[in-house]
Each structure stands twice: as C-alpha cells, then as structure tokens.
C-alpha cells in the first residue's frame, strides 16, 4: 500500500469481499434474493400453501375464539369460503379421532382438547403444576406487587432476565392480571389480583409492609431502564 493514502481509501468494504473469506454464503444469498418478493404485498396473497393450512396455522395461535370475519381478513379469502374450510377441518379432526378439536364457541373458533381426552389432560394439568411458586415467580410477583402497574419490560430490567414465562404462570394462576397498556410504549401493564391479596392474607394493597428506604422507586427505575 502506498504511503499517504487517504483515510477514505483505506476504508474497507468498497470492493467485493474475498470469496475465500466469505465462504458458506449460498444460503445467505438465496434468502436475500427473496427479500424483494412482491408476492407478500399482493392483496390476495394467502401466505400459506393452502387455505386449510393457513386457517390451521392461525387458529393454532388463537388464545380466544377467533370469529370467521377476522380469520377471513387474515387469510384474505371470502368469509363463506373460510367457513366451509374451517367446518371441514373440524369434521375431519373428529372423524380421524384427533386429540384436538376445532370448535365454535361464543361466535368464534379455537383449538380445544377433545372431550374424550379429558382424563389425560386433567392428569397433565394437575400433576404438572406445583402448588408452591418458584423463587423466580415469587420475586416477579413481589416486584409487580410493589411497583404496579408495571410492564414485562420493566420487570425484566429489574430482574435482569426474561420474565415472559414467569409472568404467564402468574397470570394462569390468577395472582396477577392485565391492567391496560402503558401510554407511550403500548406495553401491557400488570397488577396483582384480588386472589393475590387473599393468598397473602391481606385485604388491601395498603397493608403490604413498606419497603426499606434504599430501594429505588419506580421513577428512578424508569430512568435507569431508559438509560440502559
């Protein structure tokens, strides 16, 4: 290299990379080339191999019964067509004796366990759950109790670990509940439930013992999180 080369001259990346060093790139390029695929933007793109598969995939994730109008909007097909497919799938699962069942409840469709598998699933639920909370769950519950309403993100920031699983457990056990969304971030806020008070043996949050002075309060916490 010549002496006195300008800084811009030595900036890398202007030339194509040495193939020796890049290596193992075929799949990378393959994926990159699909990025521009216009198909996803077509108004009638299904986004799945078949309408049946599309409905199955979406319904698998549905926590609440999903009404056909919403489902039709997601799969971008007429409601009648979607309804026929969903009813067909449901009948097929029943005929095949599947352990799951696609049922219409409260105006929407959702996957449920089949009724004649009730014994095995109740055994799973009862055996698998500990009556006692883990230390991680207790700590998360304590943070929510003293800093409510609070988002998952802020709890994570305090605990230094991901808390999604623990929060879901606390929700399932009825110890906490959702309390709207944070105005700015749109993050779901969490608070303790009446059941929590009952289990702790107090009648009101005001009866929670005060914390020592040194514990950072919510606002400082927010600053810390924001700066992080």
């Amino acid at each position, binding site marked *: *290299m010549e*002496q006195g*080369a300008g*800084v811009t001259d*030595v*900036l*890398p*990346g*202007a030339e194509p*990379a*040495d193939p020796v*060093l*890049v*290596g*193992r790139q075929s799949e*990378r*390029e393959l*994926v*990159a080339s*699909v*990025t521009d*695929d216009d*198909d*996803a933007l077509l108004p009638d793109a299904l*986004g799945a191999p078949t309408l049946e598969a599309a409905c199955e995939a979406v319904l*698998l*994730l*549905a*926590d609440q019964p999903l009404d056909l109008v919403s489902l039709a909007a997601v799969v971008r097909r007429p409601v009648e067509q979607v309804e026929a497919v969903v009813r067909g799938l449901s009948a097929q699962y029943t005929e095949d004796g599947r352990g799951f069942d696609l049922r219409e409840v409260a105006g929407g469709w959702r*996957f449920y366990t089949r009724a004649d598998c009730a014994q095995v*699933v109740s055994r799973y639920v*009862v055996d698998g*759950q500990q*009556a*006692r*909370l883990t230390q991680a769950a*207790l*700590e*998360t519950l*304590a*943070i929510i*109790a*003293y*800093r409510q309403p609070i988002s998952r993100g802020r709890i994570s920031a*305090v*605990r230094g670990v991901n808390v999604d699983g623990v929060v*879901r457990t606390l929700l*399932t*056990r009825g110890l906490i509940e959702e309390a709207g969304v944070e105005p700015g971030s749109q993050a779901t806020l969490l608070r303790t439930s009446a059941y929590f008070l009952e*289990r*702790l*043996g*107090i009648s009101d949050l005001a*009866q*929670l*013992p*005060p*914390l020592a002075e040194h*514990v*950072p309060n919510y606002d400082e916490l927010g600053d810390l999180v924001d700066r992080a």
Partner: protein
Amino acid sequence: MITAEAAEAVPRRLEQARGAEGSELVPPTAFAVRVGGFEGPFDLLLSLIAKHRIEVTELALHTVTDDFIAHVRAQGPGWDLDEATSFLVIAATLLDLKAARLLPDGSVEDEEDLALLEARDVLFARLLQYRAFKEVSALLDGMLADAARRRARDVGLEPWLAELLPEVLLGLGPQEFAAIAESALAPRPPEPGVSVAHVHAPAVSVREQAAILVERLRRRGTLTFRALTEDAGSTLVVVGRFLALLELYRDGVVSFEQAAALGDLTVRWSPPDDAGAGAADARAIAARAVTDEFAGVPAPPEEA
C-alpha cells in the same frame, strides 16, 4: 416462501457487510457501541485482509498494517479507553511484524525474533479463532431467522382446566413477601471481576513534579536527588521526579554530579541566563521543559 420479516432477518454477510453499506446493516435495536462500523480490532483486521484479498493463513499481514494504523488514527478522540487499547495492542503487534519483514532476511536465533514469531502466531491464532466464531454467528443468525418463521402455540389453559389447578401456596406472610421485594428491587452488585484498582496507582504528572523540582532548585541552588525525593509518597512519584529531572536536564536548566557510582546524585540549578534570572514562574519553566511526551498522562479518575 419467506416472510418479509424472516428474509430481512437473514442476509447478514461476513466481510462484505461492511463499509459503504455497513450502516444499513445496523439493526434498529442495536445496543452495541460500534467503533467506526467495526466490532473490535479483529473485525477490522478481517475486513482489511478481505479487502487486500489475502488469505489469513498466508502470513502476509504486513500489507494491511498501514491500513489498520490509518484506521486507528482516523478514529481520533472519543474512543472508549478499553476499546482503544485493544486496537492499539493489535496495531503494535502488526507494526512489529511489518518491521520484521523490512529487515534483511533475519535469522530467528535472536530472542526478540522468537518473541516476535510467537506474537505473530498468537495474533493469527486469535484472528482465526475470531473468524471462526464470526462465521458460525452468521450461521446462527440464519438458524434464528429460520426458526422465527415458526411460532409455538402459546395459549392459556382452557377455563375448565385452569380451575383444576391446585390453590397457590404462597407459603409466606406479608413481612417475608416484603423482604423478597426488597432483595428483588435492590440494585444488583456489580460483577465481581478481578479488581485492578491496585494496578492502577494514581497517575503522577511528570509536569507537576517538574514544577515542584524547579521551585525547590531555584530556591536552594543545589540539592541531592535523595533530598528532592524524600517527601515522595510513593515509588511512582520518585520515578516521576526522576523523569522530570531528565527532561529538565535535556532542556539544560539543571546539571548532575555524581562522585561515585551508586553514590548520591547531586542536582544543580544551572539555567541559561534568560531562564533562571528572571522571575519566570516554576510552572512555566517546567511546562516548557517537559514536553508533550509526558504531558499526555491522563488524569486519574480520582485521587487516592
């Protein structure tokens, strides 16, 4: 078929994902401080090697040394000290290697040559190691993107099943619960790493020591080195004063006398007429005498 999300998540290339297009590749959620678009010295070095189309194992690294040094220089101020140090260590190693190449076909009998060879091997080894992790990290990125195209079913229990759950047993009262909250909310102690506080003694400014010496020598004319350093609190200060004396000697404002080897060193204030006669302030003389070579010592974070 590939979702926009997944496809966008994948194309992270290795070396060419740099330079002109580099900024686009920094994801919006970037949380790492990037130095001029590079994740550290190995990253930069790999890019430069790629640019010059050199195989890492060809040991022809000296051709990228200038680039590397230029890049380090171009960064200017504003570097994190840790980061700058790691860049400088590698720049120094590269310079050594380049210097070795410039010498006429050297034998490796010299101990220094051996050390140099070892430094080179270690640098290459570390570079190859880094490159390996960089390559697999690109594979992991692809796996993550691929897995992100599937979503796990993650729904709440059907109500009739939720009711089967046993009552939660908190197993503690309000006071114990508050104690858990306190420990959970307490700031976490910092990582108990190896303390290096004892290594970094408070920095001693050679310029300040020079000012002290000039002040004393102007008043007393002649003093022994022992006398000049008897109030020095630490070895570092003694060293600082010695360096200051060398600077002052180079500037011709002091002279040395030593009667016998290892005997007392006598320092005499002997400035040229214009420097000593006037009312020049000690600090000014010291500042003039002590060049930038020592002036750049960073201030200690806090005086011990």
